[in-house]
């Protein structure tokens, strides 16, 4: 993994995501995210882990432009999301932790909606919709209204929708929740494939095994502070511990 990062850096690949001194407070007092700094290079898969309430979703929502940071600067592919939101948003797509979408429309309506928002041609959208929805085995349900879908089907629809624009940065919050093992495997393969094609993946998860097997680097957040962001090899250096043991050690109550 370290080798891959070194190669990426050597190749001079640009920064896909940069968080500089990011803080977020909902009440003006307590900081949900505190002075967070993080850089993600093109072609990387970054796993973002932390205990419940650590600030993962808040951070991801700030990256996705759903929340504004109280302090700091977020750039996506060199574009500041606060200053030039549209240009920044053209570089990424986002899958939230809970598939709360407007569900009175058909699955295909939703996918066409997303494709129109990112100006995807009819040929490209047809090819990508068919590919991803067939992979996730929801193609035959696309003509049904989303409110008839199960939780997992909605999640698969959201992931498929987020892949249609072929984003440079693919952001996912707890993507494995609600997915059956087969679909989880497909998603992992898609994430790898996306990365192989030069895309970048940034995702949060509680499933440490997935993070361990999939990511080039792992970022651990606890109580709003970034504890570590490094390759698994560096994090594990000089210890025989598993990621789980390291995670528990780094995030334990003092």
């Amino acid at each position, binding site marked *: 993994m370290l080798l891959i990062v070194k190669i990426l850096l050597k190749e001079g690949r640009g920064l896909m995501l940069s968080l500089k001194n990011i803080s977020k407070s909902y009440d003006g007092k307590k900081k949900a995210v505190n002075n967070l700094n993080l850089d993600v290079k093109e072609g990387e898969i970054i796993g973002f882990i932390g205990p419940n309430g650590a600030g993962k979703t808040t951070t991801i929502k700030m990256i996705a432009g759903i929340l504004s940071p109280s302090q700091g600067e977020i750039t996506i592919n060199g574009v500041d999301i606060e200053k030039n939101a549209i240009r920044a948003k053209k570089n990424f797509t986002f899958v939230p932790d809970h598939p709360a979408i407007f569900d009175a429309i058909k699955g*295909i309506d939703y996918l066409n909606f997303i494709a129109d928002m990112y100006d995807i041609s009819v040929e490209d959208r047809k090819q990508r919709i068919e590919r991803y929805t067939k992979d996730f085995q929801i193609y035959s349900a696309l003509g049904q209204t989303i409110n008839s879908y199960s939780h997992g089907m909605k999640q698969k629809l959201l992931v498929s929708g987020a892949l249609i624009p072929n984003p440079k940065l693919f952001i996912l919050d707890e993507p494995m929740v609600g997915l059956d093992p087969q679909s989880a495997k497909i998603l992992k393969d898609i994430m790898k494939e996306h990365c192989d094609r030069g895309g970048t993946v940034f995702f949060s998860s509680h499933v440490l095994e997935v993070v361990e097997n999939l990511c080039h680097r792992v970022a651990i957040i606890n109580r709003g502070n970034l504890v570590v962001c490094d390759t698994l090899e560096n994090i594990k250096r000089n210890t025989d511990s598993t990621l789980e043991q390291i995670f528990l050690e780094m995030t334990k109550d003092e």
Partner: protein
Amino acid sequence: MNKFISLTKLQLKDFISRYVSGLNLRGGNIGKILLIFVAAMLLLPSIQLSQSLYTPVAMLGYPQLLITFMYIAAVMAMLFTALPFIISIFFYSKDITFLSSLPITESTIVFSKLSAIYIYLLAVSGFIFGPALAIYIINSNGSLLLFILGMITFITSPILPLVIATIIILPIMRFISGSKRRNLFSILGSILLLAVIIGLQLALTRFQSDPEGIQQLLAQSDGILNLVGKGFPPSIWITNMVQGSMIDTLLFFGLNILLILILQFLSKVLYRKAMLSFNQQGSIGIKQGSIYYKKRSIGYQLIRRHILIIISNPTFFLNTFLIMIVPILMFGIMYFTGEVSLQTLNSPLLDPYRVFIFAGIISSPAIIGSNSATAITREGKSFWETKILPISLQDNIKYRVITTIMISILGSLILAIVSIILLNFSLIQVLLGIMACVSLTLFLSTIDIIINIYRPMLDWTHPTAAVKNNMNVMISLAIRVALGGLVYLIAIIAKALGSSSLMILFSCIFLVLFFISRYLVYKVFVKMFRDISI
């Protein structure tokens, strides 16, 4: 019993906290002043009605009739308020899956849910029955006993309409299976309800403006109390209860207890079959549509999304599209009850006002419907979807406003066609009316979105909370009242200008207000829109 109390506490806390957050007094004093203003606006006509009713009945020696009449009025209002509320809270509520998994009886769930509606109805009673009780007690040089009896009467007043409404709804909903029929039933029921409410209001207005009729009714040999009582005996019991009659107290409470027992029996039988069946996704026939790939503009997709959000939900649909038929319904009811006729409306005496009448009729969709005030709220938790899209914040707001404008203009168009056919307006009147209507629609649709940006309220459990029990709508109505006052003032001051010039003046004022509100939305409040958190 402990489970019932815990669940009821939870339901009440949830309801009250959501309602308080719905009122959203984060604006500090301004918010509180607005709330008091709106409450006063609702309470004053009721106090006035009770007072004007008390005087003649007291003169005839039957002051207690005030209690009878206003109790009946309150029961009617509570009954019609409860019907859609019960449908919403039972059949469209998001917590039903959670509740149905708890180890509690069906009746516990039913009664705990009803407790939230009871609180709401008590507030409705407070606006109608409350002033009547207060006026009666004050004028009777009220003793402590009278006050206590009055309080008991007031507190128990929602039970009867609440139980009756539930008993009506549960069996009906049992037979309306399937999503589409449920929605259709809700829409048809609500249209009927709208017609009944308007009819009642018109009847009440006519009754109030006819003191001779009231006196004639009172002079009848049987006495009005018994006359009314024949149709609705609880009104006699509650009237006599306030006066200290033990038998009537027993009768009233006996009836309430009996109805509650019936409800408890029914809840056990019907809960699983009605409430649960409506929340089982599998029970709804899944229709398979075709798969297509078609490119459309961003504007088209966003407007379509906002329209679909409205029409896919009966509560939203009623509060946007169907509210437009209120003027037609009002006219229909008034026409068939003989209140107005086409001859009256086409009378030469009304000529100077005809342009105002036309403008008023066609502008009513924009005035009555406060669609922009809930345009963000309606999206609920799916609001994040448009927030992450590569569209500007201005466009995100703009297409919500455009959707409101399109819906309002559609309503105006229908009303314009109907009124032109029926009322023979001249071309100049039509043009002036359209000018005023368009400028007013632009202004109101834009200013209302500011309210929603300021108070987005995305976290709601049932759709009624999003659009009906939403303070945003009240604030938007307050804006309309203030605007109406301004228009009236200008009409008085600049009366000499004549109706046509006045209409042009009003249109110009609305346009100026539109440009000011547009500037505020897209330059000032856009930052607040960006910061709406989900």
